């Protein structure tokens, strides 16, 4: 297993796509922090942009893993590992661990960009370090959950080009659906209906009406679970959890372990299913 891990890790370091994504994420971090810095006159909070990268990790994982693992099939090199007696589980796990490390490093490159600009221009974190650390752990697990899903797809699909397309589509579907769910869950239960306003346009009589877009009951419970369970859902919430005044999403602050549990569940389920199917896979 160590031998396979070493071989796969060295190969990852030689992949141009890994370095391109790493540099792009770093540049995005620099850009996000610079934007916040330019809007503030002196001493600014970087909280609002710390986790902006999270929703993009699905796409990043899709691109990197489909190309990295896909080349094992397109070049046929997976055969070299099987022929010399490595078990399929070892091959799968070596790929999963290295892809997870790659995704975490790419996400940390974004954080490095934020820290570089933040420290040079006097930016600071308003939120407690313990909460930010917990969110950082959640974001790392989100990256690993994305890596786990994309590794499963790449290990089970021998067609590299086809898998790039399938992975990208899945990442986009997850992103769009989670964005929609998050938006619908954010709808207020009641909205203000202005009955009358005075001559300067200030409302004098306001009544509260139920919002038809508000989802309640079982549907709300299900969507909340889905939103917390899917890495894309967690990523959307993380990206939106902070503003210039600190944390706004009390859900993360109150129960971060639930998110960690959901991410671990996704990682275990997809990896377990991936390994079981890969063991039965016929390789040409």
């Amino acid at each position, binding site marked *: 297993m*160590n*031998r*396979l891990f*070493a*071989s796969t890790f*060295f*190969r990852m370091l*030689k992949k141009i796509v890994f370095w391109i994504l790493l540099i792009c994420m770093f540049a995005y971090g620099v850009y996000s922090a610079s934007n916040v810095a330019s809007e503030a006159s002196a001493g600014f909070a970087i909280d609002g942009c710390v986790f902006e990268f999270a929703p993009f990790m699905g796409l990043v994982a899709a691109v990197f893993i489909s190309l990295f693992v896909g*080349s094992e099939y397109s*070049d*046929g*090199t*997976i*055969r*070299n*590992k*099987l*022929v*010399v*007696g*490595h*078990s399929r589980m070892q091959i799968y796990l070596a790929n999963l661990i290295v892809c997870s490390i790659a995704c975490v490093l790419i996400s940390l490159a974004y954080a490095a960009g934020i820290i570089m600009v933040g420290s040079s221009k006097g930016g600071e974190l308003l939120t407690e370090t313990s909460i930010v650390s917990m969110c950082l752990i959640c974001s790392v697990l989100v990256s690993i959950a994305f890596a786990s899903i994309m590794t499963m797809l790449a290990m089970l699909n021998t067609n590299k080009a086809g898998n790039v397309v399938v992975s990208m589509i899945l990442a986009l579907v997850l992103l769009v659906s989670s964005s929609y769910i998050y938006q619908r869950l954010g709808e207020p239960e009641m909205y203000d209906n202005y009955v009358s306003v005075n001559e300067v346009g200030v409302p004098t009589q306001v009544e509260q009406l139920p919002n038809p877009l508000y989802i309640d009951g079982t549907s709300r419970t299900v969507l909340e679970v889905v939103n917390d369970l899917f890495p894309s859902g967690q990523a959307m919430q993380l990206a939106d959890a902070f503003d210039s005044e600190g944390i706004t999403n009390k859900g993360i602050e109150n129960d971060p372990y639930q998110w960690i549990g959901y991410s671990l569940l996704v990682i275990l389920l997809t990896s377990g299913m991936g390994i079981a199917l890969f063991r*039965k896979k*016929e*390789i*040409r």
Partner: protein
Amino acid sequence: MDYVLKAEALTKIYGHHKALDNFSMHIPKGAIYGLVGKNGAGKTTLLRLICGLQEATSGDYTLYGVSSRKHEILNARKEMGAVIETPAIYLDMSATGNLKEQYRILGIRSFDTIPELLKMVGLGNTGRKKAKNFSLGMRQRLGIAIALVGNPRFLVLDEPINGLDPQGIIEMRQLLLNLNQQYGMTILVSSHILDELSRLATHYGFIDNGKMIKEISASDLENSFRKSVRIEVTDGKALAAVLEQTGQPYKILAPNVIEVYNRVNISHLTADLEKYQCDVLSIQEREENLENYYVNLIGGISHE
């Protein structure tokens, strides 16, 4: 006799197609075993099973006496190298880079032997050139170099001379003979090029429709080669009629060319043909070769 690989009643079914049907095989230690069969006969399927790329539907094989059904087969495979169908190489890496990968996969820490290995397969001067820019023959050589990493005791090669130029074919033959004779490596080679195989193999297995038709050692095969006489006449039908009357075994090669697998009394034959006003144009004595043997064994028009 010690066998490196033994297959018994091996069956592999893809959908409704039986690629291997109750297949049996015995590869003695130290042999160069030539696996001969036409396209779709089941050669590559067999190699895929042996290398652990696919699982048999039923039946079993043993590698160094370890059953394929046991977990220990993974350890037995550590003594094995293979090139199946296309060479398995990272196209975005150099020859040295590819070998380093395989060294890491096998847990070999020192890369000192890489130049020697590259030289052995004729890729000593490729430098930093990436494998995607290699010719088919160079890729084939690199694939074999990767299979040789870790000095395996059993080498499996699927069409190893595909894409090689004449000089490359000679070098590859020398390399395989050298590995077999100097290092005692057992080699399983599947090939369509029977003439080349006949210069290498110490044992043969003939496969057709997923079944092992015959296994034979090269010395036994040579002893079984029949002498024949190839006769060209002006009227092939007349010659066939004469041979039928005298009960000689023969095979029609062309309308007026017939091969007779027996001693021929030329005086009697010409006298008999005279009755049909048929002239003898040429007579050649021949000895059967691997190609004839294969054609006779697997199929062809014969009147024996």
